[in-house]
């Protein structure tokens, strides 16, 4: 019954942000941009969703990039090449609808810049002009700049403190591009929910179609539990198999933001216990 999800390579991209290649040939064989995996580091672990950042059908590996924000991601970060994760399933979710467009603007913030990479690449590969806007808190947390650059026609960078690129948020960059007369066919966004909420409002104001890749809390990843439900256009939708991408202007952002904070207390308790226990598995 056991499958081996061996870690092949591991790279530290920034403080607390890690990239990992995992041997998972059957996922690599069918993965598409916009899809994700469910991961359990060890037997007692949570099932957490992580975006497929890259993969090789031929070599049978998949790549994830994650930020260590709580126990599950910290446990994952402990794995070294040669060791195997307890469980990986996928690809989950509906792939990004990629077609040749004149101009696509990709907006990505924080660790999610990596998640935007396969999307930018896919739009570029079909011949669209790709304008990427990436941003982070500060220059040391800015990841995947080279990768994004390699698949973009144009790249804009922002940091909250101005230590790299423009001082401000990715949404500020989006606003100024649209204000200067840019008329993209699509704004595709991924990142912190508040960033997506703001970018969505900006796109709406300029009458530009926008799609957001959402990140609600998940348990099953296959339409069985309803943990990932969000409200789009007034209707309940399951992000894990109808999404994770939805029309950004129809998402009820405030509800999603509140639902993401549901386990604050429990997460802190869990983290405290984990760290007091020495922070190992």
């Amino acid at each position, binding site marked *: *019954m056991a499958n081996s999800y061996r870690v092949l390579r591991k790279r530290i991209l920034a403080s607390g942000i890690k990239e990992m290649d995992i041997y998972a040939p059957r996922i690599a064989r069918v993965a598409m941009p916009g899809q994700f995996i469910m991961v359990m580091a060890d037997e007692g672990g949570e099932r957490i969703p992580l975006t497929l950042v890259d993969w090789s059908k031929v070599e049978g590996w998949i790549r994830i990039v994650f930020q260590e924000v709580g126990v599950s991601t910290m446990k994952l970060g402990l794995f070294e090449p040669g060791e195997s994760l307890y469980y990986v399933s996928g690809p989950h979710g509906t792939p990004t609808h990629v077609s040749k467009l004149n101009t696509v603007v990709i907006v990505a913030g924080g660790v999610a810049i990596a998640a935007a990479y396969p999307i930018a690449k896919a739009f570029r590969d079909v011949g669209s002009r790709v304008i990427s806007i990436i941003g982070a808190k500060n220059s040391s947390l800015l990841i995947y700049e080279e990768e994004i650059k390699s698949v973009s026609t144009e790249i804009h960078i922002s940091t909250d403190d101005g230590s790299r690129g423009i001082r401000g948020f990715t949404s500020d960059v989006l606003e100024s591009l649209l204000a200067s007369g840019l008329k993209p066919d699509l704004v595709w966004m991924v990142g912190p929910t508040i960033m997506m909420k703001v970018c969505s409002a900006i796109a709406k104001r300029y009458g530009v179609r926008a799609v957001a890749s959402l990140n609600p809390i998940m348990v099953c990843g*296959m339409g069985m539990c309803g943990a990932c*439900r*969000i409200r789009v256009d007034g209707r309940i939708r399951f992000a894990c198999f109808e999404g994770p991408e939805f029309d950004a202007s129809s998402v009820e952002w405030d509800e999603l933001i509140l639902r993401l904070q549901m386990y604050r207390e*429990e*997460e802190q308790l869990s983290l405290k*216990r*984990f760290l007091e226990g020495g922070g190992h598995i």
Partner: protein
Amino acid sequence: MSKIKSRVLIPKREPLERLKDFNEVALGYSEKEALEEASRCIQCPSKPCVQGCPVEIDIPRFIKLIRERRYEEAYKVIKDKCPIPAITGRVCPQEKQCEKLCTLAKFGKPIAIGALERFVADWAREKGVYIEVRNSNFNSKNGKIAVIGSGPAGIVVASDLLRLGYEVTIFEALHVPGGVLTYGIPEFRLPKRIVNDEIKCLVESGVNIELGFIVGKTITIYDLLKEFNAIFIGTGAGHPRFLEIPGENLSYIYTANEFLTRINLMKAYLFPYYDTPIRKGKYVAVIGGGNTAMDAARSALRLGAEKVFVLYRRTKSEMPARREEIANAEEEGVEFIFLVQPIEFIGNSLGAVSEIKLMKMRLGEPDETGRPKPIPTDETISIQVDVVINAIGFHPNPLVPMTTPEIKVDKRGRIIVDKEGRTTMPKVYAGGDIVVGEGTVIEAMGWGRIAARTIDRDMSFL
């Protein structure tokens, strides 16, 4: 006939004691009790009880063997028809199955067939008796069969076809096999070590189980057909339904599936020793009146809730849950509010549910299910809560039909099959909850048995 002895009751732990943990409530017969209960069976030559068992266990025969203390042989008789007797003995709705047709049911004292089945299965587990399920003509057939879903339907198909000599692989999306047996039915009714042992037995007999395979995503039906001669779909009815009323996405409003999955599959009741959290409410409302609602309510009490209310839109006599489970819930202190229908959830400034608005109902004429239809009055009431569990039911899991248009579904999303379990796509069969909507463990197993026979027959013509 007033001399018929009463049924030997299955011993249970005391309510106050059992509320402290998730350990099993019903303790099972001692040998003495089993012998006493078995002695009541009058060994009816026409075996009416067997008619009530979808997997056709030879009930009088195994009971007779219990009487003779030939437990290993009794186990063989049961295992011959049922691959998971420690499970069916515990969770079958026997009162609607075998025990309903027992001759002694006419006198209100049917034989406790389930409890006896459980006794034999537990005896065998304790003694480490393991019965090779392959039969002598193993390898006489060749064919590779893919089974999708490792719930009770899939388990029976796998076990039956393995015995007939086929090579069987089960594909399961989750990280543990068992379907609802693993993620849905709580530990206090069905200990997970028992589910594990029953499945281990299947694996040791030669069934291959692939976990983390989401059919329709990791691999399609079309791909599977290139490698396998036939496919059985047993993906269940695990897609939750919603009330479609305001406030349904407020925090701490769970679907029963999420609540129970966190607890059973992810062991959130052991948080923080296991990483998956769950909100332990003080005032918990469970909406619905079925087994799922009882399981959710009793789990919430065990997590430490002060009060748990079950909100049901009809009255107690219409509740679809098993009587035994309703009684267990009552004993444990679950409170029932009948004739109410939620119409709105109200939240606090943090987006957490704090109140449910309920419409009072009255009973009207019977509807298509034969039960009186609940009709709204114009009176509303409110209750204060901090956790809500929606247990109003499930839709069939849409993943496989969604990705395989050749497999036709009806308007409720159930896969359409003929009487013998064939779907509208050649070489593809289905059974269990994906076909009937919400059924029972034993019904799903009955479907599995039918489909396995059909697959074997159809394969013989190839």
